[in-house]
């Protein structure tokens, strides 16, 4: 099993390119099922979930090719199956995103539920309830969602909790429905906006994406199109935090500052000099130690939960003390326990982490427990004294494209060991 070995202490300096956002690429790839032409996608990150999605689309009969620039061409004109099998869905929960497009375009979808996902769990229920509101007959049997509809009908649907994949699934389904669909209490995340833009490029009529009320006027057919996936805002933010923690200077290019308002505000509060331009963001810490900053996570456009762990890492070596309050997910402080092993002074009280910055962290063998927790351990390793060995980095590999190469480009002493 691969591990990352990091020798801490290097001040990062340089430029790195942001990859495409996985959380935008996955729904966009699912949306290619809606087109009766070829879709060409660029800026797709090189991550396992992307290849799993390609395998899933391939099983459905979508013809896929990858070109030299890692662009993906998807041709869904001759889909041969509407079944997403358990063996693929269990490895990637985002597979549920094919449900809406399959049902809307082919009138049927049989999608396995991911393991451990008890039906009744709210997020999946919202997808199913939304499709029912559009006239679909939906049954859950033997671990599969079986959905049928002659043609979906536009409807007004109020989501009783904000769900990004639920919003995306229903938006895709509604794009080919008969009449207007209004999704209320919709997720406002930029990845939802990116999907809406892609669908509109295919000929959909969607307005209001980025607000909590999305209006979709259904159309008869959607055509193939070319589209560049938006940059990964969380990856961008992670490299910027790394600059702040190491007292260095990092410019991230091929990214967008408007996706990271809350994060950039917190970096400025931490004492970083933040500058932005067309397609780039730069953080220059000028050798200073960051100041601890209070964080409270909330759905977009507030501070993203996926950047919480990275700011815990920053606070752990910052001047002063600060609280980090997690309001989006439960049990999202696993990284704190591992960072404590590196000398961090973090106390957890319910959904709040109280961090008192220490002068230095010390290297230790640590274990990645989830994607963002792993990223925070990499950040801690970059500033710790000695060699930090991070185990179970398959979590990192799910969300960060070439992380060790990118950090090495910036001057970090980091390598993958087997």
């Amino acid at each position, binding site marked *: 099993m691969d591990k990352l070995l990091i020798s801490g202490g290097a001040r990062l300096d340089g430029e790195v390119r942001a990859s495409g956002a996985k959380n935008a690429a996955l729904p966009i790839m699912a949306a290619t099922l809606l087109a009766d032409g070829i879709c060409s996608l660029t800026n797709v990150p*090189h991550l396992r979930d992307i*290849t799993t999605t390609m395998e899933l689309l391939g099983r459905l009969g979508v013809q*896929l*090719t*990858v*070109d*030299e620039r*890692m662009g993906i*061409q998807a041709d869904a004109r001759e889909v041969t199956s509407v079944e997403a099998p358990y063996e693929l869905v269990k490895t990637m929960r985002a597979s549920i995103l094919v449900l809406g497009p399959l049902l809307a375009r082919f009138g049927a979808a049989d999608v396995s539920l991911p393991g451990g996902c008890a039906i009744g769990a709210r997020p999946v229920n919202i997808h199913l309830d939304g499709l029912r509101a559009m006239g679909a007959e939906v049954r859950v049997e033997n671990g599969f969602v079986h959905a049928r509809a002659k043609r979906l009908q536009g409807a007004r649907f109020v989501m009783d909790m904000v769900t990004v994949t639920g919003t995306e699934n229903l938006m895709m389904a509604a794009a080919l429905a008969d009449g207007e669909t209004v999704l209320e209490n919709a997720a406002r995340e930029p990845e939802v906006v990116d999907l809406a833009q892609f669908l509109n490029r295919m000929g959909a009529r969607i307005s209001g994406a980025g607000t909590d009320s999305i209006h979709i006027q259904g159309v008869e057919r959607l055509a193939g199109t070319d589209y560049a996936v938006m940059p990964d805002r969380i990856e961008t933010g992670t490299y910027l935090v790394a600059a702040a923690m190491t007292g260095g200077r990092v410019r991230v290019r091929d990214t967008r500052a408007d996706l990271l308002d809350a994060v950039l505000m917190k970096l400025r509060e931490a004492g970083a000099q933040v500058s932005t331009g067309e397609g780039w963001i730069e953080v220059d810490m000028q050798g200073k130690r960051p100041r601890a900053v209070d964080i409270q996570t909330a759905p977009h456009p507030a501070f993203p939960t996926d950047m919480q762990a990275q700011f815990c890492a920053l606070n752990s070596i910052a001047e002063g003390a600060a609280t980090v309050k997690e309001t989006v997910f439960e049990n999202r402080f696993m990284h704190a326990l591992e960072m404590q092993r590196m000398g961090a002074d973090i106390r957890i009280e319910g959904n709040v982490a109280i961090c008192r910055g220490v002068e230095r962290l010390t290297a230790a063998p640590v274990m990645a427990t989830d994607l963002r927790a792993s990223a925070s351990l990499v950040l801690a390793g970059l500033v710790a004294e000695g060699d930090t060995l991070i185990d179970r980095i398959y979590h990192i590999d799910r969300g960060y494209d070439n992380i060790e190469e990118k950090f090495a480009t910036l001057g970090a002493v980091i390598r993958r060991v087997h």
Partner: protein
Amino acid sequence: MRHRQAEQAATERLATLTEISPGQFELKGALILSTVPSLARQGARLLKAVRTKRDSTPLALEIDLSGVKRSSSAGIALLLDWVDQAGSDGIDLQFRNWPEALARIASFSNVEGLLRIEAAQHG
């Protein structure tokens, strides 16, 4: 009919597989979706010829990829098919001089091992 033949001839000009010495071949041109069917036919003919002349032809074949100017995963699928066909016939087929872009697509598709890219690059 005539149009289809002309189209096929044009496609074949875009990509060719030719023997440069016994057991040594070179692949030239574009290795993309539109050229793969024609190359697949050329490859099948080649492997059939090797099977027929087995006494005089080595059981190891090498295909030089340095002349591949454009590629996509359709090309990777073709190379995998050739490896599979050759393997069934007891022929050791290896590719050398991988263009960077083609190797990158193989890596994206997680098939470097099946195509023995690392061995070819370090060998």
